[in-house]
């Protein structure tokens, strides 16, 4: 902390005292006196309770005294469950002292759901109407502090009037502005925009700087949501700022703080301007540039005072000006000056300034104009990483290095981060590990460097290397055959260390199991040596790692027939076959059996090398985002991604299919008849990726990851969970009859915090709109923590359709804007009516529908196990009748039904022919309308 220019207050240690009541435990006598404290407090609470309940009316002083005591007891962390009624009586009093203490109690102790609110609202109403500025002030404070919805309902219409009325006192205006701001934050839907908005903007010209400060805060928040409506505030803010910046330090009298004119107001005005792009009007723009230049110039002037308050105030304005310059990102001249200024601060003796400079440079690094300029400070930043005493500052340095990293300096930065990692604070190690892993992957020109870096990471900070990181290195090695041999050699060498981290054993086991053959030619790493090396670690490892190693062993059986018997001996040993852990035991039994009964060909097929993983966004990025909170990383990442989109074919986001990195150990072998069908909701980390896309409030988010999969699951069923992330769950229940349907959408808030501005919107393309009519009512914009709201959608199928509507949900959670889109599973087959018919009828109709446009056929590979019963259930779920004994081949499935639309009815016949040997299906659809055949075939093909 900087040494303040004052000698400091609160020099008096507090010991036990008896004045209020002796209730404090001193640290020396904690245990015993803690009990004593609780005893004494309970006694005092009983006393106060009896006084409140007693027959004798309490005088004003006693009431005040007891309420103050309750406040103090509450502060110490004890529950207060009474006194509220007394407080309401106090605040309804006409005496200032009583009113004031009553309001205080209520704003500290009443939560927003209290039933007392109605009584309190009455008292507030009276005070607001009293025209007594002191009472009005108290009432406004109470509203602003409690800020509940009930209060918003009662007063949101009234407060704008007070704010802009000509005869309102300045102090009341100030309070009214902030009160309105609070209500707008909690219940924006209840604050009506209207005539008052333009008059609020003109408060920026008010004589009283306190009023201007409060109004600027209000306008900034309003302008973020309604930029058009408050556009005029830009020129007013610029001229106000200009007057402050160019004023002599004495002009603003009391608002000059340690020779800096109105620093808080300047900061607020600069924030307001950050809601808008650079002003279009050249005159305004010129004036603003002038202001910013003046602020930058002042930074170079000698200080007018040595007091730290002076430099704090001056620099607060300067940093805000720099933020605005970065935000506008349009004047190269100013950007360079800003960068130079921050460069100076990087070496300043004040820790606070170094901290802020590192932080601001992070945002500057993402600007095209200044990225290069930021890079010139790399040595200073690396030095900060090595020498700063304060972990908060070092963390900023790590962030900045990450932000300034590109191809030209990646090797240096990664090396520095790795060496810092050896001594880094435990609290930030995991984050550094993630950052190193991301940078190493993103800027790898040479994948051997990438492999080395990750193995180093595991060596230095193995405990902090999360699953995402080591899954990723395996994915990359599997996908790039140029690095496989090197990876095998490197892990083999790394495993030689007598003590190596379990994560290294995992990576080593996996890679040798896949690519051990690439180094087996060298007698120093012969198959047996590889096996013995891995097996020497086996007994020190946890169960999941051992399970992975068992899989490696069976892969060895395939790769190296010469060690087969050795491995079979290991598998056959009691410690494996009779292992207490079910998973290990099962693997040992199955692998042993597999190695004995299977022919070489079958072994080779079953234990084939892993196919490349589909390219997808690194889940490490998602993890980092989770650690840092959605807001902090996103912008930077987005910007970086744009810049580096072409690098390495980049970890591009794959909007619809991106799922979290699957565990390679989970389907290492793909043993068994067929892979299990994916079931259940998408992995929870899918929700993280949603954050990536949810930056701009107005835009509709791209489809959530997993949305397509979930959509497909609903083709053959009507109820279930459509979407789930950490915050929100969306459930569906729907029913259809003929061409009509009704869908119940349930939105569940999984958190304990309210969702605000909750707005689900159904989006249909123009095409879709003409064919499918959807009707629904808006839902309540507030969803309480743990609560569920329901929305009903009435559906009418006018004509056959192909696309699906998109459900977009936007809301605020905590301070962050959330934006989620999912495909709503309203599909053509929902309007099926099953039709039973005999074999003869079926084939007669089948022949009638034989023109080429009427038939659509698809031959495809089975994605799920080919189970007759499941297939039957799916065809019935799809909506058509399942016709038994119709097809001469009993293995085939045939179905029939009618699709109902408002305009017409379309008869449909379908036939599904499974081929078990080839694991393929042939699906044929014949309907009287080509588009219908096409769509139904698409929908149904996805199901098997």
């Amino acid at each position, binding site marked *: 902390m900087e040494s303040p220019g004052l000698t400091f*207050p609160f020099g008096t240690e507090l010991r036990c005292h008896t004045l209020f009541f002796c209730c404090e435990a001193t640290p020396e006598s904690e245990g015993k006196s803690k009990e004593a404290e609780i005893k004494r407090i309970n006694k005092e609470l009983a006393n106060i309770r009896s006084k409140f309940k007693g027959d004798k009316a309490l005088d004003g002083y006693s009431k005040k005294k007891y309420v103050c005591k309750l406040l103090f007891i509450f502060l110490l962390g004890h529950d207060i469950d009474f006194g509220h009624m007394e407080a309401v009586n106090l605040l309804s009093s006409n005496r200032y002292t009583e009113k004031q203490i009553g309001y205080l109690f209520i704003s500290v102790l009443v939560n*927003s759901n209290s039933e007392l609110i109605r009584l309190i609202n009455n008292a507030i109403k009276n005070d607001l109407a009293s025209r007594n500025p002191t009472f009005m002030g108290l009432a406004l404070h109470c509203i602003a502090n409690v800020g509940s919805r009930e209060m918003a309902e009662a007063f949101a219409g009234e407060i704008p009037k007070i704010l802009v009325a000509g005869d309102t006192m300045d102090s009341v205006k100030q309070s009214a502005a902030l009160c309105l701001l609070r209500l707008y934050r909690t219940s924006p839907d209840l604050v009506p925009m209207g005539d008052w908005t333009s008059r609020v903007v003109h408060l920026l010209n008010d004589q009283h700087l306190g009023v201007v400060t409060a109004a600027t805060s209000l306008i900034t928040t309003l302008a973020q949501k309604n930029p058009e409506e408050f556009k005029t505030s830009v020129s007013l803010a610029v001229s106000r700022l200009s007057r402050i910046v160019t004023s002599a330090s004495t002009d603003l009298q009391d608002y000059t703080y340690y020779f800096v004119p109105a620093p808080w107001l300047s900061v607020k005005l600069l924030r307001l301007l950050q809601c808008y792009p650079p002003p279009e009007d050249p005159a305004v723009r010129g004036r603003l540039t002038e202001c910013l230049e003046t602020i930058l110039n002042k930074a170079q002037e000698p200080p007018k005072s040595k007091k730290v308050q002076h430099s704090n105030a001056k620099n607060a304005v300067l*940093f805000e000006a720099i933020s605005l310059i970065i935000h506008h990102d349009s004047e190269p001249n100013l950007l360079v000056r800003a960068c130079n200024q921050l460069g100076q601060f990087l070496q300043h003796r004040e820790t606070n300034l170094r901290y802020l400079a590192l932080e601001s440079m992070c945002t500057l690094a993402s600007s095209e104009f200044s990225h290069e300029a930021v890079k010139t400070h790399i040595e200073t930043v690396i030095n900060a990483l090595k020498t700063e005493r304060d972990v908060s500052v070092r963390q900023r340095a790590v962030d900045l290095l990450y932000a300034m990293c590109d191809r030209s300096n990646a090797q240096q930065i990664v090396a520095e981060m790795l060496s810092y990692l050896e001594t880094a604070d435990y609290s930030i190690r995991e984050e550094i590990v993630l950052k190193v892993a991301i940078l190493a992957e993103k800027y790898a020109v040479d994948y051997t460097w990438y492999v080395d870096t990750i193995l180093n990471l595991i060596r230095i900070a193995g405990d902090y290397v999360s699953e995402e990181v080591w899954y990723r290195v395996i994915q990359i090695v599997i996908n790039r055959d140029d690095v496989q041999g090197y990876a095998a050699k490197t892990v083999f060498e790394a495993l030689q260390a007598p003590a190596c981290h379990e994560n290294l054993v995992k990576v080593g086991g996996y890679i040798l199991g896949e690519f051990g053959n690439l180094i087996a030619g060298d007698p120093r790493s012969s198959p047996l040596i590889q096996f013995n090396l891995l097996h020497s670690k086996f007994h020190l490892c946890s169960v999941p790692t051992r399970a992975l190693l068992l899989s490696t062993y069976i892969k060895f059986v395939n790769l190296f027939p010469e060690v087969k018997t050795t491995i079979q001996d290991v598998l056959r040993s009691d410690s494996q076959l009779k292992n207490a852990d079910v998973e290990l035991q099962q693997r040992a039994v199955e692998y042993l059996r597999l190695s004995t009964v299977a022919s070489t060909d079958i072994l080779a097929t079953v234990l084939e090398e892993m196919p490349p993983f589909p390219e997808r966004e690194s889940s490490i990025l998602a993890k980092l985002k989770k650690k840092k909170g959605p807001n902090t990383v996103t912008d930077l990442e987005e910007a970086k991604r744009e810049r580096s989109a072409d690098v390495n074919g980049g970890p591009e986001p794959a909007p619809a299919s991106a799922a979290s990195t699957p565990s390679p150990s989970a389907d290492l072998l793909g043993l068994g008849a067929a892979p299990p069908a994916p079931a259940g909701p998408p992995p929870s980390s899918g929700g993280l990726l949603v954050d990536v896309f949810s930056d701009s409030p107005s835009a509709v988010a791209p489809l959530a990851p997993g949305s397509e999969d979930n959509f497909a699951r609903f083709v053959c069923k009507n109820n279930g969970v459509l979407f789930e992330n950490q915050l929100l769950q969306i459930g569906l229940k729907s029913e259809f009859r003929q061409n009509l349907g009704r869908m119940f959408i349930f939105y569940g808030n999984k958190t304990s915090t309210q969702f605000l501005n909750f707005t689900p919107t159904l989006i249909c393309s123009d095409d879709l709109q003409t064919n499918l009519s959807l009707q629904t009512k808006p839902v309540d914009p507030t969803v309480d923590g743990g609560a569920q709201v329901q929305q009903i959608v009435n559906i009418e199928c006018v004509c056959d359709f192909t696309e699906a509507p998109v459900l977009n949900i936007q809301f605020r959670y905590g301070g962050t804007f959330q934006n989620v889109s999912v495909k709503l599973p309203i599909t053509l087959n929902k309007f099926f009516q099953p039709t039973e018919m005999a074999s003869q009828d079926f084939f007669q109709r089948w022949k009638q529908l034989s023109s080429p446009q009427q038939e659509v056929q698809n031959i495809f590979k089975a994605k799920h196990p080919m189970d007759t019963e499941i297939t039957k259930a799916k065809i019935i779920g799809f909506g058509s009748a399942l016709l038994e004994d119709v097809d001469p081949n009993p293995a085939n499935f045939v179905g029939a039904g009618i699709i109902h639309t408002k305009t017409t009815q379309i008869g449909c016949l379908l036939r599904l022919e499974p081929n078990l040997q080839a694991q393929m299906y042939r699906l044929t659809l014949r309907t009287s309308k080509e588009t219908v055949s096409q769509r139904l075939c698409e929908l149904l093909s996805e199901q098997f």
Partner: protein
Amino acid sequence: MIKAILIFNNHGKPRLSKFYQPYSEDTQQQIIRETFHLVSKRDENVCNFLEGGLLIGGSDNKLIYRHYATLYFVFCVDSSESELGILDLIQVFVETLDKCFENVCELDLIFHVDKVHNILAEMVMGGMVLETNMNEIVTQIDAQNKLEKSEPPVMEVHLQKSTLLERKRFLHL
């Protein structure tokens, strides 16, 4: 926005807590403890800003604090506030307390819970900065005192501060 303003002493005993977002009573106490834990283990002469604890909202929020002899003044703020601006605001708050209590000490915060809240209310409202001009704040507080005195007297308060503690002068401006 300012999420919370906390004052606690070197032992972590709360002396003032004001939350501008609804938290349960339990969470409030946990936030005070968490914040104390984060702030108190820091050396003197390091920077006055750090990332907020998990309970108050993690790294989206900052803790901005000053340490005055026996007391920590901590403001938890989101990213819309200027760090240095808040740091100066803490100073204005303390200087104002000193003016209103004439040499404020830790005991004043205990004896005059209501007054401290009133002073704070003149500066911060619903989590936003209301007034930064110390003279204006003091004028408002003086007006309140006058109003109080003008009302019929209530029973005399028997405070014996001076007998309990030797008061130290704490602001040498």
